[in-house]
């Protein structure tokens, strides 16, 4: 019997005559839905002849029509050259040797061009230890295709022809006769330009030439000048060093022009039981500190005490533990004798002199005084004169070349005011930057890849710069303008050739030199740069109150630094560099105040690690890093809303802030990131005393690494030199054990294998070797990978959502104890539930002065790849050459592979990044797309991508060999990252070639594989990092 129960929906139903009940029987809703409100006017709706059915018909028809029309292929035009240049074969790359000398980065490079477009920068391997091809240099090719570049010369903001421009300028120069005109330039390190400027100042004697380095090394130059009579920088070869003591010198960063990391890395790989010992005293956590064997966080004022103590003074005034470290360092230096070196980054002539004197006194073989580096020339005293002269009005005219003083001078507001009212203001600039937008006359200059030039980066080593593309815009280089204005009919090319044939070449062939790009010659080149010898020794001009111990403790000591990505900020509009994560903080698209946890807590600048539902914590729910804001005050200057990032290893009482950010003029909206720290660069001294005030708001960082510690696991294996030298490999490099049939066996045993192996014995078998001892974390490989593989830029918001697309990342780990071995011990000793929970929690936090380790991670190209087995459409498969291949056109975007990858190296295209207004970076304009590598496909939305081990490069090498009918020589196989690594940390090659370097490296006892216990059998292997830790 079915139930006759009646269910009431509401009390209303009891009332028989309820209108609501009746209405509800017919209508779904009690009240009429106000359709008119969202459909518009009722009358027009009714009078419309289109009924709903018609509408659906139209929709159906148009959809069908559109889809049928889409089946028709588009007509594609192919337009060949009318007259094809001899050297261009479409589809074949040409390489040109050239040089970069932008005032901040100096290096000899090799430019890869396709169909006349430069697409990639490589190292010039003919150039030995000469300049550093760092991440910025690799990225500079994209700055060539910057759509914000100046396209024509301007006079009062109007576009003019070069003829008119020349007329106006020469007239103006005649008007200015007798008045003080300053030619403010970057450092060129160029013999020809230096000769040319001399000719120019001879013709116009009222012009004085002042060199301005945006980031100054003036004190080091002064010290060297006073001591050796040459305004240059001592060169160092750290590969010869046994003991390196650095006091605030970021020798792996941009210290004194940079470029020391390759030599340094050579000394870090243990050879015959020996490697260099590196002690770093510093305030900010720098790359050098991260790589040092012993890092002691000290404030800048302590640094000068330490320097004094190391060079003959006493350790009085220093805290006990630091004093102990100093005497240890001193003992080490003494032991090393002439194989020790002492360097300092303190912006102080006395300090620099002390270091030089020390190195001289021990006869250090690391330092090279005979052939110093010429990459910085600026003199702070002179620049300050100009700065004050423009403000006071005593300087009447200013010609700027390659520098942007309105942006980078500390008192930029006052300077800008003085600058706008100058009688003559002429800016040579690639962009309408802050200076150029105020200048009355703007000469548009070409990018260095469109220019001729020469360099003398190190005394006696000369380089040539040659154009690799016709100028994209109506630009003319500075030197050609000077030649015009001095009445010289020569082109700058002829002028360089003249300089070289008369002085430098010494009978060597010009064509061969141009082909090689570099020439080592003993020629002495006269440099005409005026120097104020004597004045430089005056310490008062540059010394800072922060350096004297007597300064009263106000606020915190700020050390201004440059990031490996942004440098001095001239490439601020370069999305590759914006998106490149800082090697230490792993944050991109920002600069920030780095502060120690203790100071942050004291000043209430730290966000809590965990909190209530509505409380802001250090990490958002999606993991994104948050920080508070603060206002940084230095005298009258206040920078508001500087994001605060808590930096493990930051010396207590010190803060750090990167220069080069906060640029707005000629920078695209998305890339106007960070704050302008040059405002704090008073007297061009990188050390300042500042006070902080808490500001409101929460800053959202775009940080790519959110888990900072290894929790005692052996993701990065390391050992000490002592253990490495004395113990067997299985002590410090144990093969992981797995359980089979309740017995522990080695993971390398055949029994531990579930899968049948691929046969790699025939043909090539590619392997990539990464030496963690040699890797300094510089990130040149990251940008090289970007430019080789058309990796898209996703922007700050997407990076924050962990959707960054880097195929190659450099993981940075902090230890949560004093050292990583401490972490390991702690983990081993955990027992019981309580301690498990609490101690693991503790291990997530980095220690106050942690050990740091770097690890480049790209696709590991597993021989038993977990990604391959889960792909439902076989889009990813294994190649017999060892590469894990990814067929983008086959991928349907299930992302199973990324989820099954233990290394998290697969990247998903959440959006279409090319030709999409939402991602307005280089792939979204015609100019920027010229940098794309035509041999690598630009991936579309919904597709997984990852490192391909540069299969386009290996395939090309194989094809070249086949075509020539020869075998492949070792060293021919390269990936973008291995080619970019000048430290030899990344080596690529064919292990079936038993004479190859990579085969030998694979036999090394330091070899291990990442997460080997998973059994993925990767084709990428790492070398155990060896630290030179000395007890006692």
């Amino acid at each position, binding site marked *: 019997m079915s139930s006759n129960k009646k269910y009431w929906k509401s009390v209303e139903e009891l009332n028989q005559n309820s209108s609501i009940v009746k209405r509800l029987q017919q209508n779904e809703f009690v009240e009429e839905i106000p359709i008119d409100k969202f459909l518009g006017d009722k009358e027009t709706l009714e009078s419309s002849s289109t009924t709903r059915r018609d509408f659906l018909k139209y929709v159906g028809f148009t959809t069908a029509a559109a889809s049928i029309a889409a*089946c028709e*292929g588009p*007509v*594609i*035009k*192919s*337009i*060949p*050259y*009318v*007259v*094809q240049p001899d050297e261009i*074969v*479409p*589809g*074949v790359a040409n390489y040109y040797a050239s040089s970069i000398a932008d005032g901040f980065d100096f290096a000899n490079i090799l430019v890869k061009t396709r169909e006349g477009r430069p697409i990639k920068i490589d190292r010039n391997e003919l150039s030995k230890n000469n300049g550093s091809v760092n991440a910025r240099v690799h990225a500079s090719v994209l700055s060539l295709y910057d759509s914000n570049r100046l396209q024509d010369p301007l006079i009062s903001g109007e576009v003019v022809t070069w003829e008119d421009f020349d007329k106006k300028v020469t007239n103006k120069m005649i008007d200015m006769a007798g008045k003080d005109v300053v030619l403010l330039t970057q450092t060129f390190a160029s013999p020809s330009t230096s000769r040319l400027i001399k000719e120019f100042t001879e013709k116009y004697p009222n012009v004085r030439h002042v060199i301005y380095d945006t980031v100054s090394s003036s004190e080091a130059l002064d010290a060297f000048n006073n001591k050796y009579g040459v305004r240059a920088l001592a060169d160092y070869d750290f590969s010869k060093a046994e003991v390196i003591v650095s006091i605030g010198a970021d020798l792996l960063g941009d210290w004194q022009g940079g470029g020391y990391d390759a030599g340094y890395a050579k000394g870090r790989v243990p050879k015959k039981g020996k490697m260099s010992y590196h002690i770093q005293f510093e305030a900010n956590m720098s790359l050098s500190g991260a790589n040092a064997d012993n890092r002691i966080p000290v404030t800048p004022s302590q640094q000068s005490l330490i320097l004094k103590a190391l060079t003959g003074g006493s350790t009085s005034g220093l805290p006990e533990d630091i004093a102990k470290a100093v005497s240890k360092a001193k003992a080490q230096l003494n032991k090393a004798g002439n194989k020790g070196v002492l360097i300092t980054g303190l912006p102080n002539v006395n300090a620099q002199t002390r270091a030089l004197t020390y190195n001289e006194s021990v006869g250090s073989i690391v330092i090279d005084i005979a052939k110093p580096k010429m990459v910085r020339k600026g003199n702070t005293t002179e620049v300050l004169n100009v700065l004050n002269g423009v403000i006071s009005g005593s300087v009447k005219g200013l010609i700027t070349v390659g520098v942007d003083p309105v942006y980078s001078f500390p008192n930029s507001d006052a300077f800008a005011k003085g600058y706008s009212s100058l009688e003559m203001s002429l800016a040579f600039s690639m962009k309408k930057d802050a200076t150029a937008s105020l200048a009355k006359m703007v000469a548009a200059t070409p990018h260095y890849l469109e220019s001729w030039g020469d360099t003398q980066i190190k005394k006696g080593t000369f380089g040539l710069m040659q154009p690799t593309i016709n100028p994209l815009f109506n630009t003319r280089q500075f030197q050609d303008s000077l030649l015009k204005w001095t009445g010289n009919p020569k082109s700058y090319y002829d002028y360089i050739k003249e300089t070289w044939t008369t002085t430098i070449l010494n009978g060597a062939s010009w064509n061969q030199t141009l082909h090689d790009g570099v020439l080592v010659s003993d020629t002495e080149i006269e440099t005409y740069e005026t120097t104020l010898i004597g004045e430089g020794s005056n310490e008062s001009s540059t010394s800072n109150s922060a350096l004297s111990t007597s300064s009263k403790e106000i606020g915190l000591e700020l050390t201004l630094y440059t990031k490996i990505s942004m440098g001095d900020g001239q490439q601020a509009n370069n999305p590759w560099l914006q998106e490149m994560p800082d090697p230490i903080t792993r944050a991109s698209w920002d600069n920030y105040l780095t502060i120690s946890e203790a100071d942050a807590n004291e000043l209430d600048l730290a966000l809590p690690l965990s909190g209530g539902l509505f409380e802001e914590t250090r990490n958002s729910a999606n993991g994104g890093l948050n920080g508070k804001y603060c206002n940084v005050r230095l005298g009258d200057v206040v920078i508001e809303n500087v994001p605060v990032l808590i930096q493990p290893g930051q010396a207590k009482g010190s803060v750090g802030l990167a220069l080069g950010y906060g640029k707005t003029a000629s920078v695209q909206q998305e890339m106007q990131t960070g704050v302008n720290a040059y405002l704090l660069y008073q007297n061009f001294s990188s050390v300042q005393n500042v006070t902080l005030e808490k500001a409101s708001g929460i800053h959202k960082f775009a940080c790519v690494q959110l888990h900072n510690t290894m929790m005692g696991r052996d993701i990065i294996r390391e050992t000490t030199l002592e253990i490495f030298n004395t113990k067997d490999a299985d002590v410090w490099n144990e093969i992981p054990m797995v359980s089979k049939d309740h017995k522990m066996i080695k993971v390398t045993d055949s029994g531990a294998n579930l899968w049948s192996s691929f*046969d790699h*014995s*025939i*043909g090539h078998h590619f392997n990539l070797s990464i030496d963690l001892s040699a890797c300094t974390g510089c990130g040149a490989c990251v940008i090289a990978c970007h430019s080789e593989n058309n990796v898209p830029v996703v922007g700050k918001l997407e990076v924050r959502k962990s959707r960054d697309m880097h195929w190659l990342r450099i993981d940075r780990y902090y230890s949560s104890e004093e050292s990583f071995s401490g972490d390991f011990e702690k983990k081993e000793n955990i027992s019981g539930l309580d301690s498990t929970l609490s101690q693991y929690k503790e291990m997530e936090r980095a220690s106050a002065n942690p050990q740091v380790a770097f690890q480049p991670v790209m696709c590991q190209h597993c021989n038993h790849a977990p990604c391959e087995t889960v792909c439902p459409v076989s*889009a990813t*498969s294994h*190649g*017999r*050459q060892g*590469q894990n*291949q*990814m*067929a*983008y*056109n*086959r991928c349907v975007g299930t992302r199973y592979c990324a989820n099954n990858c233990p290394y998290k190296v697969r990247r998903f295209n959440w959006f279409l990044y090319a030709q999409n207004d939402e991602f307005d970076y280089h792939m979204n304009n015609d100019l920027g797309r010229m940098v794309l590598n035509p*041999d*690598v*496909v*630009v991936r579309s939305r919904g597709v997984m991508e990852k490192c*391909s081990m540069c*299969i*386009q490069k290996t*395939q090309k090498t*194989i*094809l070249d*060999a*086949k*075509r*020539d*009918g*020869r*075998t*492949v020589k070792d060293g021919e196989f390269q990936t973008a990252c291995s080619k970019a690594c000048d430290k030899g940390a990344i080596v690529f090659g064919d292990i079936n070639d038993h004479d190859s370097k990579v085969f030998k490296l694979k036999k090394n006892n330091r070899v291990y594989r990442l997460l080997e216990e998973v059994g993925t059998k990767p084709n990428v292997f790492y070398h155990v990092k060896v630290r030179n830790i000395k007890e006692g």
Partner: protein
Amino acid sequence: MLALLLTISNVINAQDEIAKVVASTENEDVIKAGKALFNANCAACHKLDKKATGPALRGKADKYDREWLYKWINNSQGLIKSGDAKAITIFEENNMSIMTSFPQLSHTDIDNILAYTSQPKPEPIIIESSIAEGGSGESGVSNNIILAALALVFLLLVVMLVLVNKTLRGIAIASGVEYEVKSRTPIWKVFVQNQFLVLVSTIFLLLIGGYFMFGFLMQIGVNQGYSPVQPIHFSHKIHAGDNQIDCNYCHSSARKSKTSGIPSLNVCMNCHKNISDYNGEENLAEGYTLDFYNGEIAKLYDAVGWDVDQQVYTGEEKPVKWIRIHNLPDFAYFNHSQHVTVAGVDCQKCHGPVEEMEILEQFVPLTMGWCINCHRETNVNMKDNEYYKKIHDELSKKYGVEQITAAQFGGIECGKCHY
């Protein structure tokens, strides 16, 4: 009688002809020799009726003194330097371009050449175009006629059948013969009532539909047979077929690059600087007359900025916007030099008989299946290539074969073409 007369007159005429021929053979030999010498030595810079690098040569023999011509041809620069007025004028008239000296030509040779250049210009042959048109149209019309005739016959049959039926019924009614009219259920109703049949036929229809749908979808983006009209009617048949120009002459980058390269116009001008007139076969049916071809050559001159009258480049270049025929998608990497230089594959293997194509078309489907098929079937050409030596030995041992296919060599791995 009349016939006999005609025959005799014919014979007489023929004899006359023979006499003429005998007389002219000697002359013809001279002209033939002259032509050969002209083509070998002079044709690079001179034409008979048109200015090329040098002036047109027809009739020049009459204009100048024979001895002077010997000197000029044997050593023109010497003549100019000696201050000969005529020589200097000619030199200046022709943009001061220096004529190569031909000391190797004897006087007889020069006489032969001059004999050839002194020939009168042949009258252009005008062919009655109506005849040609009639000829070509014939087959098309006849097909249609046959079809129409067949249709007419068929229609007639139907009409006759109906008429016969009607007449018979009329007769039957008239004669009172009763014929049974069965009220049968229509066949479609029977069909609908039979559920099994409905089911089977639905499945059948779906399968058929699926089959055709699949076929339709699979040919999307496959452009086999695509032969667009190009901005300049370039005939591969004339160049590669009639004139036997090697493919690599124009598509030179096929040997060393991933692209075969569309030749730049300066490559065309290597030959067309001298060849401004087409004088090969015509295809009147398609409208490919001599004038048509000459017009196309003129288009080339226009694009490259070549002034035919002045024989100079004007510098006004208009790049030709060719329409691309063979177009692989961006995600597929193909390298010509791998196939042309390393493997030694004939161009025709993928591009078809290009030398017979008046208008180029895509001969093959260029689908992945097509690529892979070939890689499965083709043996890798490893002979005399140091690169393959070791690999070949090892691979042939592994597979137990002497010849290794591209597929066995790893030529069908995804990553070899997709990156």
